[in-house]
C-alpha cells in the first residue's frame, strides 16, 4: 500500500480527517523549508504537499506566486526540490509527500527520469495543475511504473461525465477544488463543497481532499465535516512569510502554530 493510501486508512480507523499542508519548496530557502516540513508534521500535518517553484505559476493567487518568486531567487528548481524531499526522508519515513507543480519543469527533466529520481527520494505522488486527464497519460504511466500516485483535480465546473473519467484515472486521493478561482481566493462556500464531494463519492471509493480557500480552524472544520481531508496552502504560506520578516525560525514557528490551530479545528469534529 502506498504511503498516501496507508495514511488515509489509518485516519479512517481513528475517525479523523487528513490535514494536508502546502508550502513552496525553498521558500525562502531550502534549509528553512526542511525545518518547516518537519515542524508542520510535528504540529499535526498528515500529508505534505510541496510546491515546485515555477516561473509562471498560473493557478496561484498573489501569496503563492510570491512564494514561488522567493524560492526562485535561490534557483530552487525541481532537482533541488527532490533533494529536499530526500533530506526530509532521512528522518521521516512515514509522512506522505506529494509534489505539486506545473508540467514544464517535469517535462524538461523527462517524465521517466523524474519518476525514477523522485521515487528514489521518497516522493509519493505528483499533482501537475496544468496536466488535465487529456494530457496526463504519458506521465501517469511513468508514475505507475515506480509506484507513485498521480493526483488529479476535480473542479466545480467539471461535468459528471468528465468526473467519471477523471476518478477512473486518479489514484491516491481525489483533489476537489473548492471554488472557481486561484489559490488563496476568499469565497469558499461549504454547501457547494459538500455537494461536489458527494458528487465525487458517487463515482469513486478514493478519499476526497478539498483545497483552495481554506484558511483557518473554522473553515477547515467546516470542510472536514464533509471531506476526507482538507488542504491548507495560502494561509500557511502567508503566515510564514509575514513572520519570516523576523527570521527563518519565526517563519517555521508561525507555520507550525497555524497547523496546530487548524489541526485542533479539524479534530474537534470527532469529539
Amino acid at each position, binding site marked *: 500500500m502506498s504511503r498516501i493510501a496507508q495514511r488515509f486508512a489509518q485516519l479512517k480507523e481513528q475517525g479523523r480527517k487528513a490535514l494536508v499542508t502546502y508550502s513552496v519548496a525553498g521558500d525562502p530557502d531550502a534549509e528553512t523549508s526542511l525545518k518547516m516540513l518537519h515542524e508542520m508534521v510535528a504540529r499535526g500535518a498528515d500529508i505534505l504537499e510541496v510546491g515546485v517553484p*515555477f*516561473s*509562471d*505559476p*498560473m*493557478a*496561484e*493567487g*498573489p501569496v503563492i*506566486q510570491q512564494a514561488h*518568486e522567493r524560492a*526562485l531567487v535561490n*534557483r530552487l*528548481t*525541481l*532537482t533541488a526540490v527532490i533533494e529536499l524531499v530526500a533530506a526530509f526522508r532521512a528522518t521521516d519515513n512515514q509522512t506522505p509527500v506529494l509534489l505539486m507543480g*506545473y*508540467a*514544464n*519543469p*517535469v*517535462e*524538461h*527533466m523527462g517524465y521517466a527520469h523524474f519518476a525514477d529520481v523522485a521515487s528514489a527520494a521518497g516522493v509519493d505522488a505528483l499533482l501537475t*495543475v*496544468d*496536466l*488535465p486527464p*487529456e*494530457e496526463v497519460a504519458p506521465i501517469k504511466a511513468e508514475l505507475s511504473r515506480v509506484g507513485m500516485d498521480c493526483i*488529479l*483535480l*476535480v*473542479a*466545480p*465546473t*467539471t*461535468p459528471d461525465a*468528465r468526473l467519471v473519467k*477523471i476518478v477512473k484515472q486518479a489514484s491516491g486521493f481525489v483533489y476537489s*477544488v473548492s471554488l*472557481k*478561482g*486561484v489559490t488563496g*481566493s476568499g469565497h469558499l462556500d461549504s454547501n457547494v463543497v459538500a455537494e461536489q464531494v458527494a458528487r465525487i463519492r458517487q463515482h469513486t471509493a478514493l478519499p476526497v481532499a478539498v483545497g483552495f480557500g481554506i484558511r483557518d480552524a473554522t473553515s477547515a472544520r467546516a470542510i472536514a465535516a464533509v471531506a476526507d481531508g482538507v488542504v491548507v496552502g495560502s494561509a500557511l504560506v502567508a503566515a510564514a512569510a509575514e513572520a519570516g520578516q523576523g527570521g527563518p525560525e519565526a517563519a517555521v514557528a508561525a507555520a507550525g502554530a497555524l497547523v496546530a490551530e487548524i489541526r485542533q479545528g479539524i479534530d474537534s469534529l470527532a469529539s
Partner: protein
Amino acid sequence: MSASETSGNEPPAQAINYSSVPDQDGHFGTYGGKFVAETLMSALTDLEALYHRLSADPAFCAELDEDLAHYVGRPSPLYEARRLSAQAGGARIFLKREDLNHTGAHKVNNTVGQALLAKHMGKRRVIAETGAGQHGVATATIAARLGLECHVFMGEEDVRRQALNVYRMKLLGATVVPVTSGSRTLKDAMNEAMRDWVTNVDDTFYIIGTVAGPHPYPLLVRDFQSVIGREARAQSLDQTGRLPDALVACVGGGSNAIGLFHPFLQDEDVAMYGVEAAGHGLETGQHAAPLSAGTPGVLHGNRTYLMQDEAGQIIETHSVSAGLDYPGVGPEHSWLKDIGRVNYVAVDDTQALAAFHQLTRVEGIIPALESSHAIAYATELAARMEKEQTIIVNLSGRGDKDMHTVAEIDGIEF
C-alpha cells in the same frame, strides 16, 4: 523531388493535409493540446463546440464578413513597394497592408471574430492580455462597439513602453490592469488573464491575442487571421498573374504569420519565412526567438518551443518591440518548423530599427517595430532573389504606437 528521395519514412511534403491539423484534441504533431487547470476545461470544451457549430454556420460567417468589410476595412491592399525593392536590389517586394486596418494592426481580424463568439455565448465581460497594446486596443475597441465590459492585462514594463496604447484603451472604456508579477511583460499578462478567467469563467470570455494558448485558440485565431493569406493569394494572382515566390512575416505568438502562411501551405513552391526577434543577438541570450534558439516545453496551455533554462523555468526575453517579446510561440509554428515547411529566422533590434527608418523614408509608410523585423528580413532575402520573383511581406501594423520607443533610442525628447 521524387518520393524515394525523401528521408526516412516521412511522407512527401505534398501528402500533408494542412487543414487536418490540429487533431480533435488540438494537437499539431506533438505540439498544442490543452494544458490548463481542470476548472477551465469545460469552458474550453464549450468554446470548441460553439466554434465548431458557428464556423460552419453561413449566418455567422456573413456576420463576420460584414464586420471585416465595414468595420475593419477589409480587404487590405497588397501594395508593391517599388522604391524599397529597388534599394534591396532583387525581387519585387509587396506589402500586405494590415497596418491600414481599423486600430492599425492585424490583431483586429481576430478580436472581431472572438467578440462575435463571446456575443453568441452570452458573455457580458471580455478579458485580454496585451504586449505592445495592439491586441488590447483591438479588444477594447470591439468591446466598446458591442457594449461589453473589458479588462486588459498588461505587464507593468509594457504599460511604460506603450503609454499611448494604454491611453487609447482607457478612452475606449477598458480597464487596463498593470501586471507586476514575474518579468512584468506579455507572458505575465497572459498568466494574469488566465487567473482572471479561472475566477470569472461563468460570465467572461477570454480573447487571446495570438495563435497560442490551449486548444481551440490556436485553431480559431488561425482561422480568423487566415483572411490575410486568402486575400493576399487572390491579390497576388490578380496583380502579378501568379503566386508569390516567398512570404515573410514577423513571429511573436505567430498570428499574423500563420494568417498569411496558412492559405499558401499547400502551394509547395511558395517559400515561407517566419522572422523572430533576435533582440540584442541570438548569441547574447537576450532575444525572443524560441523557434530559432529554444526547446519544446509546456506553457500557457500548449506544448511548443519555449525559451527556458536547464531547469525548465521560462526565461526573460528581450526585443525592442513589445509585441514580439514573448518566450513561447503558437504550436502550429513549432510543427511547421519540425516538418520543415516554414523557415524560421531571426532579426535583431538594430536591423529592425534600420528597416523601420528605411521603409518610412522610401515608401512613406511607418511600420510597427514588430513588422519592421519582417521588412528587414525581406530586403535581405530580396537581394538574393531574381528580379522577376516576388515576395509578400506582412506589414502587420503601423508604427504610431512606437514613436516614443524609436525617439528614445534616437535620443530625441518631446
